[in-house]
């Protein structure tokens, strides 16, 4: 998915960035919400920002990686945007460490961010005790989606853990359905890998994996994880390798496949197919009983500009992003959940309500994108996808995993 967007995004952006060197202070705001549903959600933010007295100069770049690269290039080239969409965690801290950001404590302190944000998020967005990003929405990764109609026809209850899936997969297959819809691209397979790690070793093992702990990566428990991946290969259809996620989601909504493991952004595809999440498409924070919600979050960071105009724009933006009413409206449109804990759940679908409850119950855990060293986390992704498409034994898979992560350290 990202590859194309990245390439075109970079090309487009580089041509813009050279053309955009001008004398007047640039109030542009870089973001990567360019696709249909995302753009509609962004519109809500833009309207609120302008109502609060800001002036939004749009600088969209398709693809998160590309957008971040463009922002970085512009900052280093002396032409920083006023603000930019950014991820929590490592990527954010890297910017703060290089002193490229203004902190937002002049908004966060009086508005009491400490009281309304989950502690897990605070840990990912504060640098040296100061807020360096205004957090907007959280997307969850570990979801199991099931087609209610298919399970009614097969005559079994929808499973909620990998063990339960193992028990019913044969029955689903015998009834003429694909047990598990999976798009065989490395980033989608990584999501499946994460849920298996959660099932085998819970939050504790998951955190050690994202910390790239070599003992955990080479442990017998990891062999169990790869054994489960081996089983999962048997639940797929021949068209899986290389398939895009939205087409894969279509297998679920059209009733060809029974189950789908994917992040909550898939809800947009369900809605597009006229299926409502929580009813036609059942949802489980997966695996059930582990009480972990693996999330990826982003918001808007303010660059280290000093002139009063742009400082003011940054303050207005931070306050807008953290406005409970805005977060409520934005989340419904985007399919994410608010970062604040005091937002009304009116109008949230049952899945979003479950996710929001998990966030309130302190079950948030960061995905590797936020907390891992990128080369090491990428090495895990490469090894898992090689295993899913190769003929390695689980033991050999674990060996390759340790070797790849070691080389990346």
């Amino acid at each position, binding site marked *: 998915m990202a590859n194309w967007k990245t390439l075109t995004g970079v090309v487009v952006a580089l041509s813009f960035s050279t053309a955009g060197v001008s004398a007047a202070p640039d109030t542009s705001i870089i973001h990567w919400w360019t696709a249909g549903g995302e753009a509609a959600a962004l519109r809500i933010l833009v309207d609120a920002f302008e109502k609060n007295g800001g002036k939004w100069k749009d600088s969209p770049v398709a693809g998160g990686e590309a957008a971040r690269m463009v922002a970085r290039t512009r900052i280093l080239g002396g032409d920083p945007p006023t603000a930019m969409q950014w991820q929590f965690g490592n990527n954010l801290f890297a910017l703060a460490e290089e002193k490229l950001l203004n902190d937002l404590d002049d908004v966060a302190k009086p508005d009491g961010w400490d009281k309304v944000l989950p502690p897990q998020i605070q840990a990912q967005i504060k640098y040296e005790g100061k807020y360096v990003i205004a957090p907007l929405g959280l997307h969850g990764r570990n979801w199991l989606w099931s087609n209610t109609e298919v399970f009614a026809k097969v005559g079994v209850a929808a499973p909620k853990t990998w063990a339960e899936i193992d028990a019913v997969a044969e029955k689903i297959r015998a009834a003429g359905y694909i047990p598990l819809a999976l798009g065989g691209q490395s980033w989608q397979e990584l999501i499946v890998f994460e849920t298996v790690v959660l099932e085998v070793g819970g939050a504790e093992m998951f955190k050690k994996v994202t910390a790239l702990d070599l003992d955990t990566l080479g442990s017998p428990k990891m062999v169990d994880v790869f054994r489960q991946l081996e089983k999962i290969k048997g639940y797929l259809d*021949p*068209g899986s*390798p290389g398939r895009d996620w939205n087409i894969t989601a279509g297998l679920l909504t059209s009733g060809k496949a029974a189950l789908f493991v994917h992040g909550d952004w898939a809800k947009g595809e369900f809605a597009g197919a006229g299926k409502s999440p929580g009813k036609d498409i059942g949802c489980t924070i997966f695996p059930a009983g582990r009480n972990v919600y693996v999330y990826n979050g982003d918001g808007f960071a303010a660059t280290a500009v000093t002139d009063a105009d742009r400082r003011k724009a940054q303050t207005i933006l931070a306050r807008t992003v953290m406005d409970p009413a805005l977060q409520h409206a934005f989340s419904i449109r985007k399919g994410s959940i608010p970062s604040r804990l005091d937002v009304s759940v009116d109008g949230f679908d049952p899945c979003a309500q479950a996710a929001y409850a998990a966030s309130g119950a302190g079950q948030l855990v960061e995905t590797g994108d936020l907390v891992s060293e990128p080369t090491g986390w*990428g090495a895990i992704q*490469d090894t898992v996808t090689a295993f899913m498409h190769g003929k390695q034994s689980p033991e050999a898979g674990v060996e390759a995993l340790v070797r*790849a992560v070691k*080389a990346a350290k």
Partner: protein
Amino acid sequence: MRLRIRRFISQLVLSPSLALVAVFLYGFIGWTVAVSTTASKASPRFDRFVGLEQYVRLFDTPRWNVAFSNMFLFGFLFLVVTIGFGLLIAVLIDQRIRFEGVFRSIVMYPMAMSFVVTGVVWQWLLSPTLGIQSLVAGWGFTGFHIDWLTNPSTVIWALVVAAFWQGCGLAMALFLAGLRGIDEDIWKAAAVDGIPAWRVYLHIVVPMLAPVFLTVIVLQSLAIVRAFDLVVALTNGGPGVSSDLPSVFMFDMAFRRANLGLSAASAVVMLGTVLAILVPYLYVESRERR
């Protein structure tokens, strides 16, 4: 005196481009080599010298080893197929056939296409649900299937076919030019001796085309080492990492995995591969000229 002025002017005119080449080509090559000896992550850091460690890591990374050996496998298959068919088509077109221009254009046209378009076209053609397979199945042959793109052990053939479709025209054109350059008298002499045409080609003409072979091999080899857009558009390195190539690896490490040091090391290894092809070629060329 006038000669001296002339020489001065030509040197003056050349010097800006020489300076540009020095900075933007050799300067950046040097910069890349320097980065490859550091532990640079997202941005270059020259204060973290690690010597050759990145190269050790590189060849410890399973994905790189797949990509690197893929380059040789893909390169070998691609060269054999392109040279074989390119020569064959050139010979056929050389038979003074009617509508020669039409056939030449047909073979040459794919070259006008970018690799991205080629990749997408072949992705659709080879897709089990859209392309050739569903067409043939629609005719009633339901047992027919092509799983090149989804099978890790055959995906390299998908790359070869697409690259061949694109690169065959160039080989054909070079061979055809070589064939047209062969003295008519040789054919007449062979005809007088009653030698069949295929033997003339095999034993006389093809050996005379040796320099053309060398040019084709060098040009296509460079295309292989640089191949990036074709893989990205056709397979995106998949399934798994089975069709990964060094250039894709390099891009990923630099721009998505924030590891400039490792990326630079892979770039230097690629440069080394190119030089291993180019240097002997230039050596042979320069010796011939003397």
